[in-house]
């Protein structure tokens, strides 16, 4: 079990060293990149949007209930909501959701290519299949996930604003005051650092799980589940490490 784990880490590192190579043809790389941005990024906007609005709403309600003290000014609810969404909910929760959606997609598409010998076909032609297939997927996420997370933060704040006001938990104007008060641009930057780290985790771990499948359709299914589980675990671990390193320093 333990040796398996370290063998896995070694194989993962070897695969990554094959992935980060100069593409054979840039034009083909860019085309693949655009396609992956559409598939892994643009196609995730819907779910990210819905989740973020509701997340913002729930965080506002919870915070309002916990801070319902006449001595605390109402705009504190908005400040607390803003910090929770920016620091934790948008980057981490949304990335976990993306690990499920995008990670399983990457693992199953690469796994299918492996078991149907499409990867062998690339290798026979002399294509570095690891770089050709995986690099665009990782780069697409490194570029696009930050956009998704900024969108998520914006929609989360909007959801909190609308629901807080509509339910009479905090007035619209207090929310706006709170959202703007003591705003720390560094926190947004921190959210983006986490997002980029998670994007790499999702892309690389899922690709590893899919690319190394042996067997048939059943194994592709297993790989896809493994991709999600391992990406999520790695994200949670990275979250702890990054929070300690960056915010606690």
């Amino acid at each position: 079990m333990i040796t398996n784990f370290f063998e896995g880490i070694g194989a993962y590192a070897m695969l990554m060293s094959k992935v980060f190579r100069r593409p054979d043809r840039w034009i083909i790389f860019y085309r693949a990149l655009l396609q992956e941005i559409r598939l892994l990024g643009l196609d995730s906007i819907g779910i990210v949007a819905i989740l973020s609005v509701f997340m913002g709403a729930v965080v506002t309600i919870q915070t309002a209930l916990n801070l319902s003290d006449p001595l605390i000014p109402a705009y504190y609810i908005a400040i607390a909501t803003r910090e929770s969404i920016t620091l934790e909910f948008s980057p981490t929760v949304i990335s976990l959701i993306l690990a499920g959606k995008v990670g399983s997609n990457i693992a199953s598409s690469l796994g299918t290519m492996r078991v149907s010998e499409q990867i062998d076909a690339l290798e026979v032609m002399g294509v570095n299949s690891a770089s050709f297939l995986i690099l665009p997927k990782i780069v697409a996420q490194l570029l696009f996930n930050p956009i998704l997370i900024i969108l998520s933060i914006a929609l989360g704040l909007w959801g909190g604003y609308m629901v807080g006001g509509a339910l009479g938990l905090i007035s619209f104007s207090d929310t706006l005051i709170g959202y703007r008060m003591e705003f720390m641009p560094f926190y947004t930057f921190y959210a983006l650092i986490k997002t980029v780290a998670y994007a790499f985790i999702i892309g690389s771990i899922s690709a590893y799980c899919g690319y190394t499948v042996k067997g048939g359709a059943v194994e592709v299914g297993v790989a896809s589940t493994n991709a999600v589980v391992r990406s999520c675990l790695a994200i949670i671990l990275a979250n702890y490490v990054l929070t300690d390193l960056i915010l606690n320093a």
Partner: protein
Amino acid sequence: MIQVKGIHKQFGDNQVLKGIDVDFIPGKTNLIIGRSGSGKTVFLKTILGLYDPDQGSIHYGDEILGQMTKERRKLLRQELGMVFQGGALFDSMSVAANIRFPLDMFSNMTEHQKDERVSFVMDRVRLQGSGDMFPAEISGGMQKRVSIARAISMNPKYLFCDEPNSGLDPETAIVIDQLIQELTHEFNMTTIVNTHDMNSVLEIGDHVVFMKDGYKVWEGTNNEVLGSTNADVEEYVFKSKLFKQVRAALRK
């Protein structure tokens, strides 16, 4: 010319290839026959360099595969075409895009030259008009043709086919076999075909290598197979009633 000398390959404890020597005949269809599990696919993939042999060497002309530089190996790959057992077509790409793919990756042709080459190859395997279809939309026989077209699009010196007619009806199977034979002679390729099908052997086996349990047990031409007195060949070939009757008729 391709020569393999003393090839051994094992996976874990499973010794799959146990010392095989073969000289493949240039410009001809070389057939490797054996029952499933006898190691044909592993053998072919080892010759191609997808697996490294544990022992032995693979010679392309006077070069040894295992000793080539990375750059040389990459160039050699452009002289090889491979038709995988399941076709291994890129299912996100149209038929024409599949055939064009190696040209896009490796050739210095202009777009116009690529268009011409693709349409020439498609004509040659009789796929005219199917360029815009996707692999999932075409029949098994057509998938094999696309796979063959993709394999020959770079005008390779060597063509490898892993059970090219498995999963096809007998009529289509013969058409595919004959297509491989024609292309081999027309483009003067050295072709190596894995099969378990005696029909293919008799139809196109310029040179036949018989494999069993990781060994080469017999070698000869298609005309010699039916007369072979090798016990393993006899056991394999004359398993079916049909071939037993053929043998009886031959001996009369």
